[in-house]
């Protein structure tokens, strides 16, 4: 049986040197920006310092809703699961098409007030071994309780784009080393695509695993 190696990741933001003042510029910047920037605003946004607890899971939807005051486009952007796309280029093409379609129905292009531009950023992520391991699924609850949010992000969110795709690392470990019907698997699957901030996600994981373990006793 293989032990689960707990990794952690740390992120530092960088400017992507692009900014959008209105919806058309948003579309143009999405067309021109690095793929890393799209990834950052869809996925890494969870790891970035924020005081917000947004309804939408990506920065483009949040800005469209809160600054451009366009709830229709915000809803369409907000529902996107970036991990369902083959890569960021496929997602980029989809986004441009969506915004173009939406703008064709508008009489006026929505603008942001000065100072409320969308700043395109990206990030550099450092992944490192924590030196801690899990050998028994029964210890998963305690291990998650002690994990940093960087570990939660790496193993539960970022894992979606590694092989096997759309599966978190905990589930992959359980399926490979224990059982494809392990009782924790549905619990993990239910939370995998949630919009929750990382701290809430960690709490939800702990709570669900605890409940599942109690029912199994």
């Amino acid at each position: 049986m293989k032990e689960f190696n707990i990794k952690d990741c740390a992120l530092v933001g960088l400017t992507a040197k692009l900014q959008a003042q209105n919806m058309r510029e948003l579309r143009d910047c999405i067309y021109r920006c690095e793929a890393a920037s799209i990834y950052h605003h869809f996925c890494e946004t969870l790891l970035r310092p924020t005081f917000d607890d947004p309804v939408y899971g990506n920065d483009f939807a949040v800005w469209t809703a809160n600054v451009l005051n366009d709830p229709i486009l915000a809803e369409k952007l907000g529902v996107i699961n970036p991990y369902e796309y083959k890569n960021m280029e496929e997602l980029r093409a989809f986004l441009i098409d969506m915004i173009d379609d939406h703008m064709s129905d508008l009489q006026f292009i929505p603008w942001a007030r000065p100072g409320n531009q969308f700043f395109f950023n990206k990030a550099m992520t450092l992944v490192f071994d924590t030196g801690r391991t899990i050998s028994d699924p029964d210890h998963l609850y305690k291990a998650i309780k002690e994990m940093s949010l960087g570990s939660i992000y790496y193993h539960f969110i970022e894992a979606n784009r590694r092989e096997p795709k759309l599966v978190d690392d905990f589930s992959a470990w359980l399926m490979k080393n224990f059982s494809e019907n392990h009782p924790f698997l549905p619990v993990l699957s239910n939370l995998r695509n949630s919009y929750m901030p990382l701290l809430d996600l960690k709490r939800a994981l702990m709570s669900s695993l605890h409940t599942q373990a109690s029912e199994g006793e």
Partner: protein
Amino acid sequence: MKSMANLNDYISIVGESNISAIRQVAHHLKGSKVVHVNSTRKGGGVAEILEWLVPMMKELELDVEWAVLEGVPLFFETTKTFHNALQGKRIDVTPTQLKSYEEINKSNAARLKPMLEDADFVFIHDPQPAMLINHCKKKGHWIWRCHIDASNPHRPVWKYLRQIVNRYDASIFSMARYAQPLDHPQFLIAPSIDPLSQKNVDIPSAEISSVLDRFSIDRARPILTQISRFDRFKDPVGVIKAYKLVKRYHSVQLVLAGGTADDDPEGSAVLEEVREAADNDPDIHILQLPPDAHRTINALQRGSDVIIQKSLREGFGLTVTEGLWKSKPVIGGDVGGIKLQVVNFHTGFLVNTPEGAAHWIRYLLEHGQKSIRMGGKGREFVRENYLLIRQIREYLTLMVGLREGMNKLVAV
């Protein structure tokens, strides 16, 4: 104030996993020679950061030195002009001033050369020592750390500084909106607060009471507090206007506490305006505090029901972060970094007018449970994102990233 704490002291605040993560990242930098250069050992935000950052990097077994530029009054007058120009003031630098800037950097480079040329990482803070790079052979990575809001600089001054700064391997800005386009990677590292400093550490309720008593503030009635310099951009007169609108419905008290204004002619004028607006109202407490009154400020913030930072223009707004850390909802001006920290119905309310401030102060006073929930949420946001632990982790990540060639994902 200098934090005498070591990393383990923060475990009870941010958890062992966060401290362990810092040690793991730092392990990959063990023994690296790091030099920080700024223009003053004492006073000012940069020195305050270096006072904790340098010892903490040493504790993580990095070989760190902190060098301070030696200058003359004309040099500091010049760099003050740079500072103001970067912040948007239309002010030009004279040829004599530029000559002083260049000569002082040259003479300091001669003094610091062995240290700078031997370092693996050189952090140059703000424009004062920026030109050292022109006089040194680069062995390690040189990073320019800009602590200033350079979003709308006076162009002639920025053009002069830009050709110097572009020689660096990377720069760091506090927020994306503060950055200017440069030819190298521009990192974003937001400021942070030290939860164990005198300004933020938990203090006994008896001490809070004692401070409130000292200033004749009634603990039994709601307290609204704005901590800031007496500066028009902080809009203290607007805060008094908001207080008066609230006062019609609630028996509130207002505390306006800031540094002494003796050396600032404009500050004295603003203080006069504030006193006039207060009109001897016994429930408005205008407090001029010495620069080291950190614990008093701590007590005032903790004793308050609502923290106000109704700025008309603001950098990051660390007083907001401090208020949130003390579990207080914040009424903040809809400007600068306050917009990042105050999120309507989550951590407080953003306002544009005294009327707006009055409305949301009343809302908070009349919805006590919501106010408590928002305060709790604010504290958790600060814990996760705006404590110095996050800032040092980002510095270390940046250093590993630069050393490993700036790949998007670096596995170590």
